[in-house]
């Protein structure tokens, strides 16, 4: 196995991990503020993809623009749809259950996740009458991949990594340097005291949902660009992986979510890629990628239950 192949696996892993991390932030922020695992977050991600596609397919002229010019519009569309869906879900589904036992909102989240998938599958229409029961085509960058000494970097890969870096830098700035960001940290660290400081917890919860949804929409855009298609059920596996990444990094910790995503992406690509490379173990390669991802999760939970960057109880940030 050559170094080039290994580096290619690392490249794939980083790109995949950057995307997982973007989605994982949504799980971790919502958990940090209301201790809810929002299992519908994968569908928020999916809706972000369809929002972007809608702008591309339905707004006249956008499809004829060069892709780099259409991207900001698509991103905006995806973010708007994802944020609206997440904030609406919080308002209509989760807020009425705020004082209910914790199992109730959890089951609600699972139900919402199924409902959103079916809504898109049944009712999404493309111009010309196509529907979304099967994967639908997503615009992708043409052009050749960049060749860095044998390691191929697709244009969409580059876009993914840059988008993730920009988003995370923006998020770090938001949390540490703005009034709303500090209020969110405060709510996560001690909700009662935060209320006494004049912080309206409902608003902070909405902000957490909205920020998570916006990053998920960015992730959906990168996934569409890389695979050239999106589908109504793309949120299931992506959401599960991102949730794993959030737990891996320490749920409730924003930096942990990104780290967890990258660790998970690397582990998945490296384990499956290396195993696939040798004849004796080839059968445990690509097809077992998900298995290795979850084995990693189990190992981390056994050795470090609070996650890589997590702190023990009540010390979330």
């Amino acid at each position: 196995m050559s170094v080039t192949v290994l580096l290619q696996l690392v490249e794939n892993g980083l790109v995949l991990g950057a995307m997982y991390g973007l989605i994982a932030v949504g799980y971790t922020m919502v958990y940090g503020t209301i201790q809810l695992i929002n299992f519908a977050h994968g569908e928020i991600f999916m809706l972000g993809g369809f929002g972007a596609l809608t702008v591309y397919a339905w707004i006249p002229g956008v499809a004829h623009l060069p892709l780099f010019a259409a991207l900001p519009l698509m991103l905006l569309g995806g973010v708007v749809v994802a944020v609206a869906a997440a904030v609406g879900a919080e308002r209509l589904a989760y807020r009425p259950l705020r004082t209910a036992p914790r199992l109730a909102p959890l089951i609600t989240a699972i139900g919402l996740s199924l409902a959103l998938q079916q809504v898109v599958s049944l009712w999404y229409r493309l111009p010309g009458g196509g529907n979304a029961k099967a994967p639908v085509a997503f615009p992708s960058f043409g052009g050749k991949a960049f060749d860095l000494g044998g390691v191929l970097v697709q244009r969409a890969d580059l876009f993914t990594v840059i988008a993730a870096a920009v988003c995370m830098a923006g998020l770090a700035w938001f949390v540490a340097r703005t009034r709303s960001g500090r209020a969110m940290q405060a709510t996560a660290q001690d909700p009662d005291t935060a209320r006494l400081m004049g912080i309206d917890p409902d608003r902070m919860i909405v902000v957490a949902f909205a920020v998570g949804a916006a990053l998920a929409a960015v992730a959906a855009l990168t996934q569409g660009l890389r695979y050239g298609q999106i589908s109504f059920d793309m949120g299931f596996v992506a959401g599960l992986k991102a949730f794993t990444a959030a737990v891996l990094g320490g749920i409730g910790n924003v930096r942990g979510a990104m780290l967890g995503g990258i660790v998970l992406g690397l582990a998945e690509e490296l384990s499956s890629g290396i195993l696939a490379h040798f004849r004796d173990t080839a059968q445990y390669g690509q097809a077992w990628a998900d298995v290795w991802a979850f084995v990693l999760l189990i190992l981390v939970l056994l050795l470090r239950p609070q996650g890589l960057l997590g702190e023990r109880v009540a010390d979330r940030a």
Partner: protein
Amino acid sequence: MSTQPANPPGPVSGTAPGSEPILQARGVTMRFGGLTAVDGVDLDVAGGEIVGLIGPNGAGKTTFFNCLTGLYPPTAGSITFRGQRLAPKPYRVAEAGISRTFQNIRLFPNMTALENVMVGRHCRTREGLLSAIGRGPRYRAAEREARQTARELLSFLDLDRHASAIARSLPYGDQRKLEIARAMASDPGLLLLDEPAAGMNPRETLALRETIFKIRQRGLSVVVIEHDMRFIFNLCDRLVVLARGRKLTEGRPDEVRADERVIATYLGTAPAAAPGTAEQEASDAR
């Protein structure tokens, strides 16, 4: 410390107590199931007044604070602040101008001292989310203002050197002072201090008393819960004694000190010693 006069002249306040009270609590009652923790307590606090709230453990002092700040919506009774009836919502109470500290320190442990105080200023700052994202002039002005006020308060409480230290790493006494700084950041008219001297040594306690006088000079009224009797008798204009959720008596420190019911409440039977002495001896023995 030991040379404190038994009956101090009493801090004379610039803003005359006896003027229109800024806080009027009427018949505040808090029941938890069958337990009545606070039972029909009235409390008036005048502008610039320092009121002590004392009573044995379990008398309902902290519960009363929780009612005042909206953490517990009272079962019955009303709380009026600056002529307006308060909704029992903590963030509304903060906006109206009441803020507090906690018996067991509740700083935001993983934020810096400066950030803690800036969060305390939350309800006095406005910053649109969009302006923040665009880093617009309003965002920058609000940030600068909040940071300046926070720094000013840190130096008021002599905490400047800790500005960028993580709150949970501060020495205990400084954490207590940081809670006061954070509570003052919302420009309150009334400050509620829940056992501010707990765990402080005599020197720190003395400094704390001076600090509270300085806080009053800034125009704030203060209500203090405290078990250190020497501290509270030398600090307050007026004392309110709670026992089993009810107001037993209230009055000037020398009146309360002489009240036999107070002595009986603290010690079970009427003893020879005044309540202040008894508590002081108890805390000296610790």
